[in-house]
């Protein structure tokens, strides 16, 4: 069992947990993820390793409550334990040899972007972090980004914090103003990554997208996480989760991400009912 050592609410729908998982912490690298099961009947869901501490043997996860499993997870408290927690899975972000990068994150994708930003920063690269949120209540990790990047560009849809606009607006402006990036890394909603990718393709800047398809095992066994990349089928859990964004078929990925939607809605309602009853 994997104990929850710390639980912190980052915003109304996003929570951070620090988990006791020494074996995962020992090997974890930015860009990798874990798969957890909250309880015996639970589904396996992937979450990115947001941070880790090798000495303490802990791994930090940051999740957005979007459905039944993340809802159930969020009802666990410090001191409770997760039934299963396996990793690190997937390939680590390739940071070597890159001197100047832009990391573009959106929403909870910023939780995934954060360790990547930090790693580049630690290696002495110049990192521009461009992070976008719908409004100021949803902002997460602002201080962490500020402390670990050369420049932070905070964007919001409604202008309630940072600058009003999309992350692609900021990125375009930076590129147009003459910033030369070795690479752009984009992490967030599929639609955002699609447009980031479209933009950088026009400028011919190498871009990596961190993909998040539906997964089951996370070891290459089920093929459920497959994507089309450069016309070839790839398994995101073992070949990724990061891929050359200009080669990814985002439209297909968007369709695939909705595959279980009818089931998920029902499950979410049931979970909410369950917890309502318990509360009363």
């Amino acid at each position, binding site marked *: 069992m994997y104990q929850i050592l710390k639980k912190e609410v980052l915003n109304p729908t996003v929570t951070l947990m620090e988990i006791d998982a020494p074996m995962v912490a020992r090997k974890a690298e930015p860009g990798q993820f874990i798969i957890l099961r909250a309880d015996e009947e639970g589904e396996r869901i992937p979450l990115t390793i947001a941070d880790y501490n090798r000495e303490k043997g802990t791994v930090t996860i940051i999740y957005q409550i979007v459905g039944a499993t993340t809802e159930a997870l969020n009802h666990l408290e410090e001191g409770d334990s997760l039934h299963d927690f396996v990793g690190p899975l997937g390939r680590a972000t390739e940071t070597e040899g890159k001197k100047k990068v832009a990391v573009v994150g959106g929403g909870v994708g910023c939780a995934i972007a954060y360790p990547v930003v930090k790693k580049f920063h630690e290696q002495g690269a110049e990192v521009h972090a461009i992070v976008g949120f719908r409004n100021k209540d949803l902002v997460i990790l602002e201080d962490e980004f500020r402390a670990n990047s050369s420049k932070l560009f905070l964007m919001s849809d409604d202008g309630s914090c940072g600058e009003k606009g999309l992350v692609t607006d900021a990125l375009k402006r930076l590129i147009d103003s003459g910033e030369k990036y070795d690479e752009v890394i984009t992490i967030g909603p599929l639609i955002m990554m699609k447009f980031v990718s479209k933009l950088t393709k026009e400028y011919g800047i190498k871009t990596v997208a961190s993909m998040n398809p539906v997964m*089951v095992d996370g070891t290459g066994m089920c093929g459920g996480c497959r994507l089309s990349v450069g016309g070839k089928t790839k398994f995101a859990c073992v070949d990724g989760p990061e891929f050359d964004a200009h080669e990814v078929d985002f439209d297909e990925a968007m369709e695939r991400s909705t595959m279980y939607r009818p089931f998920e809605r029902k499950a979410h309602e049931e979970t909410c009912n369950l917890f309502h009853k318990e509360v009363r």
Partner: protein
Amino acid sequence: MDVLKKVPVREQDPEVRAHNFEEVCLGYNTEEAQLEAQRCLKCKNARCIEGCPVNIDIPGFIREIEKGDPSSAYKVLSNYSALPAVCGRVCPQESQCEERCIRGIKGEPVSIGKLERYAADWARENGVKPDMPSEKKGKKVAVIGSGPAGLTCAGDLAKLGYDVTIFEALHEPGGVLVYGIPEFRLPKESVVKSEIENVKALGVKIETNVVIGKSVTIDELMEEEGYEAVFIGSGAGLPKFMGIPGENANGVFSANEYLTRNNLMKAFDATYDTPIAAGQTVAVVGGGNVAMDAARTALRLGAKVYVVYRRSEEELPARTEEVHHAKEEGIIFKLLTNPTEILVDENGWVKGMKCEEMELLEPDASGRRRPVPKKDSEFELPVDTVIMSLGTSPNPLISSTTEGLDINKYNCIVADEETGKTTKEGVFAGGDAVIGAATVILAMGAGKKAAKAIDEYLNNKTEKSL
């Protein structure tokens, strides 16, 4: 009683079982088992034994059943096999032990599998356990994967006194026995779990949620954690796809995904959270055991099911018993049929499958009759779900992270057939990881041979260092 015929085994009625996940075959009771045991001639030169990959003393255990001593029958079995209740259920007996049975020359062979199952089930229900190891060697061996190969190797090494730890990537031990083969053929709680408990009772530790090559590497296990030998039984879990248009549409699954959602994650049981998009009209592409399992699972989840296979009935690689059961349950076989494209609707969901009819040429040098498409035979099968069951290959996770471990062009680990020795010192391998997707009993046989070889290797190492 007709001595030329097997004592018939009771089964759930096809109409009933098509709607539940309970075991199809109900097995022999004591009386039936004793009757069937009488049919065995207890041959001096028992040919059946040669047909069994782990050479079980078949007349030996059948004799005990006939005497009315299933406990002793189980003791005989457990000298050879760590998982008799599993093998009795899923071994392809018709091409192994039973194929060689003398009784089979004139009539039906002795029902060796069903008798094996009877003895193992009796032992479990009556709390008979395998004998405990006597001595301790004080040496650590790591086993990767908890499928039949790993469990067998671990069990045998524990019996020899080694301190054995199995590392398993998933949250539940058992390999294909838990994630692949469905409940209605191999009950998980009663049969698989308790056979695994027997292996644990020998002192074997099982650490789940450890992906070797990711969480820890083989080199680290040996250099930092004091494991003196390693056995790799990581199976062949990587699913193949056909490469035809539409294959990434919503509603197309590998058999592994479909079965894992249903078996390991228990999607059929509403108390579990994992969803399955079961489908209403399902095409399963392929003709092996895996295809039969996927088809019969989809049927139980409420679908109308086609099995689409490009050769004829004769070439179906699945066990005859499974094909027979599938037909009884109402699965429709579209033989000599090959898919060419999956048709997709405007929302990205499967709406049909384009197929062509095939014909078989004369056998070629390999003896197989090659299927070729018939001219202008294209037609459309109206389905909303497609399950690809085209076989699997070993996952490169381990081979790509282990220094000096060679693989062949099929990604199979190169290992000696008799000993499981790989190209890396102290590392042994067996089962599907070495020979590609095969059978439970072959994996067990490989685990057994490797355990023996590991014991010899470690004994020699100690002698040398003295």
